[in-house]
């Protein structure tokens, strides 16, 4: 921007939107909604061995009014879904949600009359964590991904949300970008044995 030229050292300029996003992404306050074994992994992620505070998300609040990241971990039943929806509505904007594990994401193995087959049918979810239960590393990965989203980065979506098909344009763009980086850093890709004749 050039403002630094006038203000001198000790100042940086940014956009207020980016500044807010930077603050938010490094200070996510989780609201744990743990109903099953995923909650045990969540506790492990938050405690000293995996230590989610390294990523600024250690202030677990059991009040939805004081948190901005909902982590749904575990089975959600017919009787629990209204509670979850109420908790989601009680959280102040801006807010994000992680669906942790197979049960929260799709019902898992519990395909019965009382199990919700994926909480994303009824509340918006930003990041899904696969696993049964996921390891703490998976949850940390999800939080990092969410931080990218909070920061306004274009999170790579390989599947098209509307059609459910692979997003070919994005895949091609990724391939092109990878080839470009590779060409710049390590030179052209070596031709494979079968491709030499064609080249």
């Amino acid at each position: 921007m050039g403002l630094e030229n006038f203000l001198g050292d000790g100042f940086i300029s940014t956009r207020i939107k980016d500044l807010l996003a930077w603050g938010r992404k490094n200070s996510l306050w989780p609201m744990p909604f743990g109903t099953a074994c995923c909650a045990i992994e969540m506790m492990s992620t938050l405690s000293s061995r995996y230590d989610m505070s390294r990523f600024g998300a250690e202030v677990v609040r059991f009040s939805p009014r004081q948190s901005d990241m909902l982590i749904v971990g575990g089975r959600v039943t017919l009787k629990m879904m209204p509670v979850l929806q109420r908790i989601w509505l009680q959280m102040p904007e801006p807010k994000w949600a992680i669906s942790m594990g197979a049960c929260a994401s799709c019902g898992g193995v519990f395909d019965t009359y009382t199990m919700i087959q994926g909480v994303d049918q009824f509340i918006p979810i930003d990041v899904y964590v696969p696993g049964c239960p996921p390891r703490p590393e998976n949850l940390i990965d999800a939080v990092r991904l969410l931080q990218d989203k909070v920061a306004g980065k274009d999170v790579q979506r390989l599947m098209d949300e509307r059609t459910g098909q692979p997003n070919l344009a994005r895949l091609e763009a990724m391939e092109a970008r990878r080839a470009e980086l590779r060409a710049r850093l390590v030179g052209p890709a070596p031709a494979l044995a079968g491709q030499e004749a064609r080249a």
Partner: protein
Amino acid sequence: MSETRGTSLPVLDPAAVRKERRARAQEAEARRHERERALAEAVTGWFAPGEASRAELRHQQTVTVPVGRAHETLRRCRDELGFDLLTDVTVVDTLKLEGDHPERFWVVWQLLSLAQNATIWVRAWVNEDEPACPSVRDLWPAAGYAEREAYDMFGVEFTGHGDLRRLLMPEDYAGFPLRKDYPLRGRGERDNFPVIRRANEEAL
């Protein structure tokens, strides 16, 4: 006491000890089966011949009684035979069960006598159209929750319970999910919630 010095404990053969213990346990178990059979026969003896029946399967004693006299029978079991603990009250749906059954449901009470270390089952058939059965909450307070659960899952009314609400399922749930004609995936209850969307989906 000074004589014990230098003496050693008798050397036991572990295999022989195990064998003896096993034999003693088997004897105790056989005595328990005898007690349970005698108790079940005592219950059957309160009824006219043909009114109640006793069945034995793998040493489990089950007495079938008419539903109208179930409460009286259970009270006498508690007061006269010393069954001080009601372990469970539940219902069996015979809709898809093989064999010939007089009614669709039976209610079963599992009784335990702590002093005698004996367990018997008392059961009563209840009909399909208006499944109802006397409550035993006045005899054992523990029946309160068990009867609520049985009502929740099978829809059997326990008359005289006083607080017969659903225990596990939501209050407004329609149907009784453990009946064998209830579909495993329910009747669409799990898909019937309002969908909450983000107000500012694009802004995020």
